[in-house]
Structure formats: structure tokens, C-alpha cells
């Protein structure tokens, strides 16, 4: 405990976290600091050898989150353009997961207060919804169609009035 206090300012300190299903993970303090919750725990000297218990985060998403934070912490400041792009690529690959994992990440990132990841997951979800037909969306997200056929027809006729998108006028040129 005393050792942990002494080294509180040392960014090389490894922080241990424990998933809801009892698995232990380690990450550098700089990485843990990306999580608002972990940062507060560290500041409050709650980070000890036993690890910080994360009661609602399972091992699978936690492993990913540790990956995410470690990667982002290593490249947190003074990014070159190449590094920023590499980080972007990393994010894009990182978030290529199935919806179950996506939900887990979304909820866990929200719980742990990892802002970057939270945004990434939310945007990914929105992007998944965006290009789909209603039926595809119901299928992907397990949503039950609670419209009657008549209602559905009515909505189709309804004028979607706001902000009609403008097609580029290239055909006019």
C-alpha cells in the first residue's frame, strides 16, 4: 500500500483491474487514466495489488477496453499525422465486432467513463443503422415490428419533411 502511494505519480505503474467474472488485467497507469472511473480510483488510492474490481464489466469486453486504452495512452500527446491516422485505423479495426460485443463495449465504456471509446461505439452503432432498410434494422437489432400493416402504409405515405438531401448536381453539368 505504501509502495503504491509512493509511486502514485509514476506513469509506468501498472494498474490492475478485475472483471466481473474474476479475470485480472493489467495496464499502464496512463492507460487507466483514460477511464474516468479508474482515474478517480487511482487518485483516491484505491488501486492496489488486488486490482480494482469492475463489477459490471465482463472479461471479454474488458480485455478489449484494456487494449484500447493501452494503445491510446501510448499515443496520447504530440501525435504526428501518421500516428493519428494509424490510431484511426486501429479504431476502425477495433470496433469491427458483432453487435453483442458492440453493446458490451458501449455499456462498459460508458460505465468506465472512457469517452473516446464510448463515442466510437455509439457512432459505430449509428453507422450500422444508417444504411439499412427497416427490415434489416429489425433483424440486426432484434426489434419487433409493432406497426400494423395499415400504420406502416400510412407512415410510408407520410411526408418526411425535414431536410431533403440534395443530390450533387453533377448530372446538370
Amino acid at each position, binding site marked *: 500500500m505504501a509502495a503504491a502511494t509512493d509511486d502514485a505519480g509514476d506513469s509506468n505503474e501498472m494498474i490492475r483491474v478485475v472483471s466481473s467474472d474474476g479475470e485480472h488485467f493489467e495496464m499502464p497507469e496512463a492507460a487507466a487514466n483514460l477511464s474516468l472511473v479508474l482515474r478517480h480510483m487511482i487518485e483516491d488510492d484505491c488501486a492496489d495489488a488486488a486490482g480494482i474490481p469492475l463489477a459490471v464489466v465482463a472479461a471479454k469486453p474488458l480485455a478489449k477496453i484494456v487494449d484500447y486504452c493501452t494503445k491510446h495512452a501510448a499515443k496520447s500527446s504530440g501525435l504526428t499525422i501518421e500516428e493519428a491516422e494509424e490510431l484511426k485505423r486501429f479504431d476502425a479495426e477495433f470496433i469491427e465486432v458483432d453487435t453483442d460485443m458492440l453493446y458490451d463495449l458501449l455499456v462498459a465504456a460508458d460505465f468506465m467513463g472512457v469517452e473516446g471509446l464510448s463515442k466510437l461505439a455509439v457512432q459505430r452503432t449509428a453507422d450500422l443503422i444508417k444504411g439499412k432498410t427497416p427490415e434489416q434494422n429489425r433483424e440486426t437489432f432484434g426489434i419487433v415490428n409493432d*406497426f400494423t400493416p395499415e400504420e406502416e402504409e400510412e407512415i410510408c405515405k407520410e411526408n418526411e419533411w425535414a431536410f431533403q*438531401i440534395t443530390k450533387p448536381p453533377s448530372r446538370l453539368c
Partner: protein
Amino acid sequence: MRRVRVSSHQSPIHKLGDSQMKLTPKFRLATTSALPSSMPSSDLEQTSWETPLIPGLPDDAALNCLLRLPVEAHEACRLVCRRWHHLLADKARFFMQRKVMGFRSPLLFTLAFHRCTGKIQWKVLDLNYLTWHTIPAMPCRDRACPRGFGCVAIPSDGTLLVCGGLVSDMDCPLHLVLKYDVYKNRWTVMTRMLAARSFFAGGVIDGRVYVAGGYSTDQFELNSAEVLDPVKGVWQPVASMGMNMASSDSAVISGRLYVTEGCAWPFFSSPRGQVYDPKIDRWEAMPVGMREGWTGLSVVIDEHLFVISEYERMKVKVYDPETDSWDSVKGPPMPERIMKPFSRRPLPGGGPATAAVRLYEGRVRHSRRRPAAHAFEYHVRYALVDLDRLPLPGHLSPDEARLIASTSGPVHLLTIPKSVGYEQNPLSIYYCYDSAEQGQDGNLKMCIAEVTNTPWGERVMFTFQPGSDLVAKPLHVSPFMDMLGNWSIRAESPGDTLYVVISVQHPTLDNYFTASFHAKLVEKTSSSLRLATFFWLMPHKVAVGIYWEAVRLWLKNVKFLDHPRYLNASYRDEAQKRNLEIRSSCSFLQKQKMNDQRSGSADETAEITNHHDQNGEESVPKRWCVWRDAQWPWS
């Protein structure tokens, strides 16, 4: 769209600003109230939903996702289920939720107009998704001059106010105030301004809308200013500006409204400017460095005034209030293709490069500042003809033009072909190129202006340097003004766009008249039939497509321009402020007089050659040419 027929200068003023001008049902579009009665009513609280927004996700997380859906995705997504429909079908609710969640919805509103018909349409650029959208048509007359409006965005309310304006060809200013509500996606008519005005200043300070100056009903510049409380919807007068002034641009910096009259080449008179402080309800003079350097459209970022300098090749500069001077912003200037008037490139790839004729469409704007301030604009079409491929009777032959200009390359004539039924062709320009650049536009050597004064049938020709040139006008044959005026002409090699600006300064009246022609290339052709058709059907019939010119850009959110690329220091340094001294060698030729005075064309040619080879003031007959050094006000 309601049309108001206008028969005099008096009546339209009352009609146009009139609150009687109703919106047609077209503008009151149905919202969710059109839902069948069996649908969940819109006032149902979210807590009453039994189904989750997205199964497997807490509702707040799911809401966070759905609120990020771009509006173009809503049409399909509202069909997924009732809850999604509830959220997405009503934009007021959708945007309100976004606001509650702290999302920003930066939108760039652009006033666009159809170049032929003048029809106005607002385009909206969603800066989150970089997508363009169209909002319902503004309930406004067809012939309103797009540039005359005062447009003010109130981002915190999600509204855009379009005030005043001008009926294009009538010089008739409007009282009208229209409000667009982004959440309702609807236009409404607001209380009209106390004074009808066009080309005026406007800005939002502490949620209140201030307007000042502009052209009034009697075509004189106004000195009055007024303020709108958007909540109460009432206009009230504020302190007078202290000078009568129309405004080309204005900006709000640190709670004060800066109004500039606007710089117009060639800067003979220093543009005026005033600053309003609403806290003390008082105007004061704008610092001299600020008003003289405000040479283009401005935008305020972080209380700094940036100007895209129209007269310095779209260079971006920023005002330094401490030293009352302007600093160049590092990096390249605005790309030429987005020069004001901002526009879309009409012909990507273009037609055959060797086409004999290029057709341009654009607008001529005349503005006279004194004794009566007066401005109007109209739509014209011009042809740019390669004279070697299509000689035009009644104009110089390409060889004659080359002799005059001392060039050996192509000669392109910008003119309105005579066959069109146009009664006058006030200005034609010969663009004379160097031979090394066949077919290229890059090496324009000399221009010859051919000015015809229709009532007297007189024609004046004179050479001028491309780029800009100032020519004294000692000729008694003047189509525009009395003989005391000086002409300054600005023209560059026509490309996808074309512009000619002629300003006339009167030495005693200390004022000037400006005629400008801005046009876009719309077609290349070698067919004389096409040429005839293009001009024959000039008013409205030829389908040439729609090209939008954005005349005013209004940011709903300054975040957009915070973009670091814009101000990035990694670009190489710009050169020091160029010496903009104008080369002013000029010469006049008066073709008709020559024809009268000289018996044969050989003599005329000899005269031309002689005059130009020596290219000195001594060799030029005095009654036709005067030397004059142009003064650049900043040098």
C-alpha cells in the same frame, strides 16, 4: 409562390413587406400530426414505452446512438418500430433531444440562386456529415435580388432570419422579415422592419438582431438602425449611424457590430465604416486601417475578424485591433474556383478544348454611389468567340486585333452576338494571347475594349492590360459618364469563370460608378446554330442546368472554422504584401473617327502599328490618350 404584380415604384413597397403576404400551404408542411389516431400520441412520455429502443442496450445508450443518425437516414429508420418513429419523425423532438444530450448540430446555411431565373433556394450543409440539404422554399418573391437580403443566424434558437432585400430590377427595397426554424423546418413571416432596406448590415448581439444602414425606398442610403427582440417580435429604433451608408459586410466582434461600406476596386474613395456598441447605444467611427483593409467577405472566429480578400487573390487575412492592421494568414489563398461569387464548377472536364465559341452566363451589376445611390443587376449571356475560327462581321478581324495588341496568338472576342435582337452591345472585349500558348488561357497579353454608345452609334476602342488597368478618359464619346471620368478596368483571361469590372471615377464629384460582369462558362460549342439558339432563347427557355451561386455564408456554429488546417502553420510563408502598383500604360483608339478621317484601312493599320510599337506617351495622339499613374491606397 405568390407573385405580386408591380407597376410602379410606390405600390410594391407596401405590398412586399406587407404582412398580408401569406405563406402558401406548401410552406406549412404536415408534421407528426398526420399520424393515424391509433399511433402513440406525441406527448407520451418515454417512460411509458414498454419496449426498449434497442433490445440489449439501456435506453440512454440507445438514444445516444439514434440521435447520431443523420437526417437522411430517418426516412427509413422511422419505419422500424413505433419508438423509433416517435423519435425520428418529429424533427423538433429529435433536435431538442440532441440539444439536451449536448450534441452540436452545426449547419451552414447558404443562400443560393438560379443564375437564369434568379430563383432563390437555401441550401444547408450539415457539418457533422458533410451532406447538403434543401429546406422548403423561402416564401419570397421570385425576383428578389439575392444579394440584397440581410441574413442573420441565431444558432442558439436554431433560427435564421432573412430581412429586407431588394426586388431585382425595380430598386425596390423590402421591409419583409422571414424566419426559418430549423427544428420545425418551416418558414414564417415575422414583424417587418421599421424601414425597408437592402444591402445593409446585420448581426446578433446577446440574442437580439441589429440591422443598420442600407439602401432605402428612395434609393438613398439610410443612416438608421434598429433592433429586433426575437422573443417579443418587435423592432425598435436604436441610435442612428451618423452617416448614410449601405453595407457590403458586417461582423459582430466582442458584442459590437462592425459595419463596413465595402471596398470596391480601385479604391478611389476609402470605404467608410461604423461600429455600434449596444451597451451604450452609440456609434463610433471604425479605425481607418480596419475599414480600408476590409476587402472581402468576413468571418469572426474567436473574436478575430478574418477576411477573404477579394482584391488580393482571395488571400486570407486577420485583423489586429492593437495595431489597427491586417496580418496575412499563412497558407494558400482560397481556391480560385470558390471565388466570390462562390459557385460550382459548371463543366467538369469541359467540352472540346478547341471549340470556337464558349458561352457564358452571368450577371451585370451596376452601382452608382452618388448623387443617388443606386444599384441593380440583371442577367446576361455572352459568347467568347475564337475569331480565327469564327470571324464576326462588325468587329475587328483577328489580324487587326493582333496588330493593335502586338500579339501573335489567338484572339478571343467576348461579345453578345448581334443576331440576337439585343439592341445594344455596350461592351465587347478582345482577349489577345501570345502565340506560344495556342489555345491556352494562361498567357493573355493584351485586351482591347470596344465600347459602343448606342444612342449616338459611336464606338470607342482602347487597349488595356489584363489583370487591371487604369485608363484616363479624355474622349468626348462616352457611353457612361461625362468626359471627366477615369475608367479603371479589371479583366482576366476567361476560364470557367469570367469577370469584367469597370469603375468610373469622377474627379469633382469624388464618387464613382461601378459596372461589373461576373459570369460562368456554361457550354463550349463550334456550332453557329447553337450560338444563335443560345442567345435567341435568352430569357428563360434554354435548359442549361442549374448552377448555384452562394452569395452569403452564415455559420451556425463557429466550430467549423476552427479547423486547424485552415490556419495551419505548416504551410510555407506567404510572400510579403505585393506591390500592387498598377501599370497604367494605355492608349485609345477611336475607330469610327478614324474611319471618317482616314480613307483606307491601310492607313488605319499603319497608325495602329506605329502607335503601338513605340508604346510611349509621346507617340500617342494627345486627344486620344492620357497617361496617368494609379495610386494604390495602401502603398
